[in-house]
């Protein structure tokens, strides 16, 4: 195991996922001697790229970029270190019986594509995009600021609450109402108000279920839909990009930026506990017994590990422990990644690369998605799952040998808790289900497969450390967001232990490769240090 260069640091960040790296980079940039400790042999957490077969680079878990806050790109000077979000120039949504939606970069052309399925959906699509963008513009400030503490009588918090209320009051009624409909309602209700095409609704509703144990008709799916549109790429809400070298390429950029600001990264250094003395964090103890002293300790792990594993829950208020114990994880997503000998063929369209220069969305109708969810409700994985495919090698030739491809498939639903079986038994069966599903849309798909990697929620938990394999480090459910993420009163990155902070995706604003939790936590830490002087 490697050893830290110093015995004492101003700040120690536990966990080198993207939020840990962002947090460490900001702290180092502010002049703190910062150490980032990572359990594995590489940083990135769930945002890693691995060469599983020679020449084939797999985005094992996280696979695309959208919600990353633009201010982080600038403030951490990421372009200097190789930040390169590659444009996904198309989105392909195959349907049944040769139907499909193929979107590209020409908006008016896309409207014609919608029109092919339903002429009235064409301007409805424009209206929908505009309405969603208005809501995103209204809510964006919430992603970029520490949320107020609803339960505090501190004058500063009361001012923040009043500013938030004022911000909401200033919104146009239609924008505020749409926001509430999305935050509390179902994606299906929202989409049904605009569209009639099943294929289009299936495609759009796919964003309402990703990473979350809801179906498009569940209340709460609207929030997930909105969340996935809150991201932006080069100024366009809801647009996604593939980072050069996959999301692992991105976290390597973050690591270089953090190091350039002076942060030290210690790999293969699992932390067994945060050490405390008199209610104050004093550093970390590694599993090999090494103790490293730190004025500030920041956990980039999920809330369960942050509060119940790294520290002794007996040190914490009982209501917080209770809230964390009932915090919903219930991971429901899996990945199946392929090395392919060529591009899949879609009947009628062939195997042209322009089909695959973005997401390939297997969710041909709202019914399809809802039925896939039905099975998860009763403790089993979908027999016809939703798949978000991405053949990144069509955009980044460095990810596969010439003429060959890698395909990342995000799969839902695959609930962490299986009824009457377990994931070690079902892993290959899940791979077969996904393969069969792809085969049904792309005849001959199986014959292209050179290698298959199945990543179940259990694997996500084992490898990355995300509890129950929840990709957002905690479900995106209204009672677990904003004022309440991860627990009422503890939404401002602090913990009841002085000097111990949280910065993972289990804090506001949440998961996805966004970096906001890492950044906002660093602001809070720096503010507290300033006030302590």
């Amino acid at each position: 195991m490697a050893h830290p260069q110093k015995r004492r640091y101003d700040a120690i960040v536990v966990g080198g996922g993207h939020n840990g790296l962002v947090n460490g980079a900001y702290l180092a940039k502010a002049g703190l001697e910062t150490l980032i400790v990572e359990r594995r042999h590489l940083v990135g957490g769930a945002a890693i790229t691995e060469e599983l077969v020679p020449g084939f680079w797999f985005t094992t878990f996280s696979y695309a970029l959208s919600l990353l806050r633009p201010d982080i790109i600038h403030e951490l000077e990421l372009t200097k270190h190789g930040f390169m979000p590659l444009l996904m120039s198309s989105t392909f949504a195959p349907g049944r019986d040769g139907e499909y939606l193929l979107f590209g970069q020409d908006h008016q052309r896309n409207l014609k594509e919608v029109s092919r399925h339903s002429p009235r959906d064409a301007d409805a699509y424009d209206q929908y995009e505009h309405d969603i963008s208005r809501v995103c513009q209204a809510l964006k400030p919430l992603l970029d600021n520490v949320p107020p503490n609803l339960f505090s009588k501190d004058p500063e918090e009361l001012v923040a609450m009043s500013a938030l209320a004022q911000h909401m009051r200033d919104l146009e009624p239609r924008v505020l109402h749409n926001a509430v409909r999305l935050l509390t309602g179902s994606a299906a209700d929202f989409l049904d108000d605009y569209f009639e095409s099943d294929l289009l609704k299936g495609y759009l509703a796919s964003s309402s279920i990703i990473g979350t144990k809801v179906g498009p008709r569940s209340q709460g799916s609207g929030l997930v839909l909105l969340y996935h549109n809150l991201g932006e790429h080069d100024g366009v809400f809801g647009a996604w990009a593939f980072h050069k070298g996959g999301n692992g390429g991105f976290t390597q950029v973050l690591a270089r930026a953090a190091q350039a600001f002076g942060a030290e990264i210690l790999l293969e250094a699992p932390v067994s506990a945060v050490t405390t003395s008199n209610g104050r964090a004093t550093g970390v103890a590694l599993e090999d017994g090494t103790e490293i002293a730190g004025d500030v300790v920041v956990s980039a792990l999920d809330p369960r590990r942050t509060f119940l594993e790294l520290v002794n829950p007996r040190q914490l208020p009982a209501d917080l422990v209770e809230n964390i114990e009932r915090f919903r994880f219930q991971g429901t997503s899996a990945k199946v990644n392929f090395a392919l000998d060529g591009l899949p063929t879609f009947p009628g369209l062939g195997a042209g690369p322009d089909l695959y220069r973005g997401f390939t969305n297997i969710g041909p109708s709202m019914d399809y998605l809802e039925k896939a969810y039905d099975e998860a409700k009763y403790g089993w994985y979908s027999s016809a799952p939703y798949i978000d495919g991405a053949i990144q090698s069509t955009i980044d030739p460095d990810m596969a040998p010439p003429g060959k491809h890698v395909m990342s498939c995000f799969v839902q639903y695959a609930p962490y808790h299986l009824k009457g079986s377990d994931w070690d038994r079902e892993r290959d069966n899940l791979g077969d289900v996904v393969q069969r599903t792809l085969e049904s849309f792309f005849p001959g798909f199986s014959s292209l497969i050179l290698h298959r990697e199945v990543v179940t929620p259990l694997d996500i938990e084992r490898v990355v450390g995300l509890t129950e394999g929840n990709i957002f480090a905690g479900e995106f459910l209204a009672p677990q967001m904003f004022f309440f993420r991860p627990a009422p009163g503890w939404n401002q990155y602090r913990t009841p232990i002085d000097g111990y902070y949280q910065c993972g995706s289990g804090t506001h604003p949440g998961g996805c490769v966004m970096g906001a939790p890492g950044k906002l936590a660093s602001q809070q830490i720096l503010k507290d240090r300033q006030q302590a002087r």
Partner: protein
Amino acid sequence: MYLTTPFHPRVEARNETGLWSHWSGYLVAEKYQLSEKFEYFAIRNAVGVFDSTPLYKYQFSGADAEKFLSGVLARDIRKCRIGQAHYTFWCDDRGFVIEDGVVLRQAADRFLLTSARPNLAYFSNLIGHDRVYIDEVTEQLATLAVQGPRSRQVLTALAPEVERLDYFHLTEAKLGGTEVTVSRTGYTGDLGYEIWAAADDAISVWDAVVEEGAGHGLLPFGQIALLMARIEAGLLLIDIDFESSRYAWNDEHRSTPLELGFGWMLRGLDPDRAFIGHRAIKREIDEETSRWRMVGLIVDWKAYDEMYQQAGLVPPKDHLPVTEEFMLYDRDYQRVGYATSFMYSPMLQRHIALARVRPDLAQVGQAVDLEVTVNHRYQRVAAHVARLPLFNPQRKTA
């Protein structure tokens, strides 16, 4: 009727947009894909090919070719060895820039010069008693630019001599069964090459390169992607960033080499070389009379975002180059320069511009305000001066 280049059958087959424009009388693709930005990323992350045949090309030969060019071109051609290329420019006798171009030295007495506009009469009228022959070979030579980080790999597979070709050097090579010249030059600011082939061989060259590049993400790219790349690369464009002094109506529309940032090509100026404009240029250097300096500008992202947010708008990040003039001001609202090319750079994730500013404000980091329109009103947004090129990957020269 427009002209077509020797690559046209292939260009036409690949252009999926039906969007064309005219360049020096030739039909050229605006973009091949519905997304020019995707083509731009082929240049920056894979490999792209661009048909640059419409550039004017002049062959200079004869015993006095070097002597002639050293008196006509401002950059000292005598320092350009055989097998080397120079970015160069030529001036009028008042030291104002006429044009810029690239010159390839193929032999002691043979040079190939490109220019954006016709210059044959201009050069021919300067021959005097020199033993030099000038032939326009624009139509005889097809030029295919192969640009991007994978360009070396693709071309080396076809012609191994490309692997060791240095920046701004050229080599004869056999490519797709035909004799060509390959130069390590281009207009993208990236690793890249240009293939110079006989017009009759154009198709076989295109086919060989496109076939070899297929597994490397190769895409043909059009005018728009090229014009995006060149702004990042700090490469000036005639009639956008400067005008030919031959056709300018007044000196406000003329530029000196120092004003355009060409000073580096005049370093170690030989006092005995009497090229056209040398006296005026020397005077400008000695007396520091330049009116402007060409610089890069980077817009303050925070100020830009806030300006639009406050206006109730989503801050636009449009990668399409805007080639209108934007005024630059100091904090006292005095005009201190103007930007000529403006865009949002996806690689730099910033709004950038090529601009000229007063020489005393040309140092890196200097703050200036850029005037834009927001909600139909002029507004100023903070920017700072940056060194050109704004995007300059190591691989370009490595």
